[in-house]
């Protein structure tokens, strides 16, 4: 808020300075409409600002002056000398008050009522107040035009380039150590200066948030809705330009939330929600990204209706819509001209789409994600880079040329010469298989028609639709680049995202991953269709994962048994309880190994599951997914190995999945039921239930029809009526038992659990006897 106040003071001072001339001219000619308008605008602005800065005194003055001036503008009042004097007195007073706020000094308000009264039509002319000695505190902030900042930035870049060139020239010849020292100092200063100047471009996101309360109110009121707005993280800083570019999308999302998301108060009451809808806007910084979240507790997106509309609009065929995943269905909201609302309103209009919002966010290198909870609310997450201009990038060489790739879009870079990568021709296109993952391959040199570009590495590039492997030459560098937009003619190629001038002094182009995929004609098949392909593949033979085991043997494991492949720290693996266990978030997973796992560093681990039990299988390296031949040579005397198969002309051992799981104990599937006989205090539910549940029991306070409790727990002062089935009962006491008294003290956990277990066992024993 402090920043806002400073800004208000600076702005008011500035306008007052500019206005002083206008005031004199207006005084000379009260009918001058242009001057009148200027003064009206000033008091109007002050009044508006006072509203959310909580400055009631200033607000009252400005409001009174505004009313009178509005009347003059409408022609209902004549601008006579008394009126002009009264208005001018108020303008002066606003100036004095502003200075007092800036200085933090008190100013008595006795004359303010008089000032306002003097505005009345029949007021006694005001005695011109003698202007007291005004103290003006020196302002600690300066307002600058962004243009000037830009020029400063450009100058800074020039300076950096000049320094680099100087350093390069000096390096070519023997250099005097004193010159070298001076150059070093210069470099340091220039570096610091660059940081400082970069920071001048940063602004608190408050600048964006401050207008929101008003906007929410103005949107909600005509719709008859009540909305409470909460704002978090207003002190997050980001590039000024970015703030401006975020403004429109944010306004749009918030209006949508109020208009479409939050229900009218009556409906909310009927739904059991609070009458006032809740809108939470928060900002936080993660790395060099800013995450903005806008969440409401309204009705969320009605996906079914969205589907119906998409079908009606002929956007996709019904079959395709039916085959879509939930995520894809939700993403239909971003389709052009599709809105989940049937009725257009004055606020959001109709078909003003989230498509435009997404396009805008993506244009500034951001991403948008939805979390939809139908009936409960919608959260929209915007992820944008910290600044428009500085992007961490990887510099790659292709032939003689260099290009930059945004680091954010690269999942990993793998060298082609290793075993991990394999490249095949499929028809006239190429695919790369990286550790079992098959990806379409685009050779950058071929795409860009650069001669002599030998493919040495693959960059796995992630785009919104899918990933692909980009064949590149050498990886040369990794640096933060100041990226500028390219000319339209270059943009038109669709494969460049920007241009930059690195320290080398030679321009470089920033590649656009999604654009490359499009230019290369890659079409990413929706996930559903891929799943179908896998289903047909399984009919041919079993898919299996090919890997190097810890003992160096190459083995395969049926893919269906592999839940996932993960990398864990070796320190998470311990010999506990007589065998190796892996610590995971919520417990331990038993491990099966063919050799001793490494004691330090990272371990690649296969998480296996047979649907019930989970085990871990540490390996050296995972390779790829292969299809096992139907024929397999059996082996004898090798526990854990089912046989030997030939994969890609090589003999590999097939791990016996059956044996792996045969030794494992499945977690208890049946949990005996404890009936809690309530004493009305809720103690049973609050204190007892967690203890019992942690010990492997199920708890209920009433029995479902046909259900019998294994044991009933009750307080000894409120025993349950004798049950017909003769269920065992454990009685609990509120106080420790005196010698000779029966029952168990309710806080004696060990005795309590033992008693429940004993009753359970007695009953089990009884049942076994009956079975005999």
């Amino acid at each position, binding site marked *: 808020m402090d920043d806002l106040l400073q800004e208000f003071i600076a702005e008011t001072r500035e306008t007052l300075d500019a206005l002083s001339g206008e005031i004199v001219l207006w005084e000379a000619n009260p009918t001058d409409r242009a001057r009148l308008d200027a003064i009206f605008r000033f008091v109007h602005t002050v009044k508006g600002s006072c509203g959310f800065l909580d400055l009631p005194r200033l607000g009252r003055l400005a409001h009174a002056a505004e009313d009178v001036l509005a009347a003059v503008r409408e022609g209902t009042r004549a601008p006579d000398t008394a009126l002009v004097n009264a208005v001018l007195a108020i303008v002066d007073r606003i100036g004095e008050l502003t200075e007092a706020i800036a200085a933090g000094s008190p100013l008595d308000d006795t004359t303010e009522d008089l000032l306002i009264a003097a505005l009345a039509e029949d007021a006694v002319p005001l005695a011109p107040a003698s202007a007291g000695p005004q103290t003006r505190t020196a302002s600690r902030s300066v307002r600058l035009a962004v243009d000037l900042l830009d020029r400063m930035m*450009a100058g800074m*870049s*020039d300076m*950096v*380039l000049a320094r680099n060139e100087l350093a390069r020239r000096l390096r070519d010849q023997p250099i005097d150590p004193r010159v070298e020292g001076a150059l070093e100092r210069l470099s340091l200063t220039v570096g610091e200066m660059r940081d400082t100047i970069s920071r001048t471009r940063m602004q608190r996101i408050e600048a964006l948030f401050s207008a929101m309360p008003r906007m929410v109110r103005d949107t909600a009121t005509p719709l008859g809705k009540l909305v409470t707005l909460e704002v978090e993280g207003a002190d997050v800083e980001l590039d000024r330009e970015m703030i401006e570019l975020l403004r*429109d*999308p944010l*306004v*749009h999302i918030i*209006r949508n939330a109020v208009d479409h998301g939050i229900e009218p108060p009556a409906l909310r009451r009927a739904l059991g929600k609070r009458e006032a809808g809740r809108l939470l806007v928060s900002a936080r910084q993660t790395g060099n990204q800013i995450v903005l979240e806008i969440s409401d507790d309204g009705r969320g997106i009605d996906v079914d209706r969205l589907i119906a509309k998409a079908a009606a609009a002929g956007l996709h065929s019904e079959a395709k819509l039916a085959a879509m995943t939930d995520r894809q269905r939700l993403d239909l909201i971003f389709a052009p001209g599709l809105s989940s609302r049937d009725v257009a309103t004055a606020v959001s*209009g109709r078909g*003003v789409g989230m498509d*435009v*919002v997404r*396009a*805008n966010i993506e*244009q500034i290198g951001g991403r948008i994600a939805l979390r939809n909870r139908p009936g409960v609310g919608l959260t929209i997450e915007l992820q944008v880079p910290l600044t428009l201009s500085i992007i961490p990038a990887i510099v790659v060489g292709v032939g003689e*040329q260099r290009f930059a790739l945004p680091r954010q879009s690269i999942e990993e870079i793998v060298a082609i010469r290793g075993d991990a990568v394999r490249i095949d021709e499929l028809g006239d296109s190429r695919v790369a298989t990286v550790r079992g993952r098959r990806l379409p391959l685009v050779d950058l040199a071929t*795409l*860009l*028609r*650069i001669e002599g570009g030998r493919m040495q590495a693959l960059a796995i590039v992630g785009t919104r639709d899918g990933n692909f492997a980009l064949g590149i030459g050498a990886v040369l560098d990794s640096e933060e680049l100041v990226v*500028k*937009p*390219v*000319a*339209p*003619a*270059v*943009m*038109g*190629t*669709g*494969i*460049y995202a920007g*241009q*930059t*001038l690195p320290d080398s*002094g*030679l*321009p*470089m*182009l920033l590649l656009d991953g999604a654009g490359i995929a499009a*230019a290369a004609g890659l079409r990413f098949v929706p996930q559903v269709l891929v799943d179908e392909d896998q289903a047909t593949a399984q009919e041919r033979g079993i898919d299996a994962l090919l890997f190097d085991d810890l003992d160096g043997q190459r083995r395969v494991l049926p893919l269906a048994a592999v839940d996932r492949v993960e990398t864990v720290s070796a320190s998470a693996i311990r010999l506990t309880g007589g065998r190796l266990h892996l610590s995971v978030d919520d417990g331990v997973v038993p491990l099966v190994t063919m050799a001793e796992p490494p004691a330090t560093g990272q371990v690649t681990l296969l998480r296996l599951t047979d649907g019930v039990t989970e085990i871990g299988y540490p390996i050296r390296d995972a390779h790829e997914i292969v299809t096992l031949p139907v024929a397999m040579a059996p082996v004898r005397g090798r526990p854990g190995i089912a046989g030997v198969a030939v994969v890609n002309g090589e003999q590999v051992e097939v791990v016996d999945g059956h044996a792996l799981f045969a030794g494992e104990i499945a977690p208890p599937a049946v949990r005996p039921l404890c009936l809690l006989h309530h004493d009305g205090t809720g103690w049973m539910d609050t204190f007892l239930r967690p203890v019992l549940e942690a010990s492997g029991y199920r708890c209920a306070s009433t029995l479902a029809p046909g259900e019998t409790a294994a044991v009933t727990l009750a307080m000894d002062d409120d025993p349950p009526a004798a049950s017909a089935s003769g269920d065992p009962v454990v009685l609990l006491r509120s106080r420790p038992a005196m010698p000779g008294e029966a029952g168990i003290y309710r806080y004696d956990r060990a005795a309590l659990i033992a008693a429940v277990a004993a009753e359970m066992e007695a009953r089990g024993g009884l049942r076994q006897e009956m079975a005999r």
Partner: protein
Amino acid sequence: MSELFLIAHLAGRWVAVAASQVDSAVDIGEVVAVPCAPPAVRGLAALRSRVVTVIDTQVALGREPAHRARRAIIAAIDGHHYAFLVDAFDDVFPFDAAPLSCGLALDGRWAVAARGVVERDGEPLLILDLAALVPAGVVTDGAIAA
């Protein structure tokens, strides 16, 4: 009313360019190629701390590429800086611009870029509009209609 024009030599003839369009006239350094860009885009060059898009003016006029040209007219068009390659400069002179004489049949590209004629020592020179020589890109920006 006379206007200032920069007289430059390209494609074997002298032409006039309105000085108001010209930012500066310089010798440019190394040009980095932009693969896949329209042929008229020679590449990118650094001009102090700024990156300029180098336009092969001869190609833009539908002629052979000017491989040797190193001098360029720098102009800012729609917020982007371009370097238009020329063979040589003369100087800036005030001229009276005259409309193209009727019946004059210019070749397609020239016709698009020609804005009129000035007369230097009795020799008529075409006025070139640099903005018309910039190859079009696909405009992809959309604004939010709130």
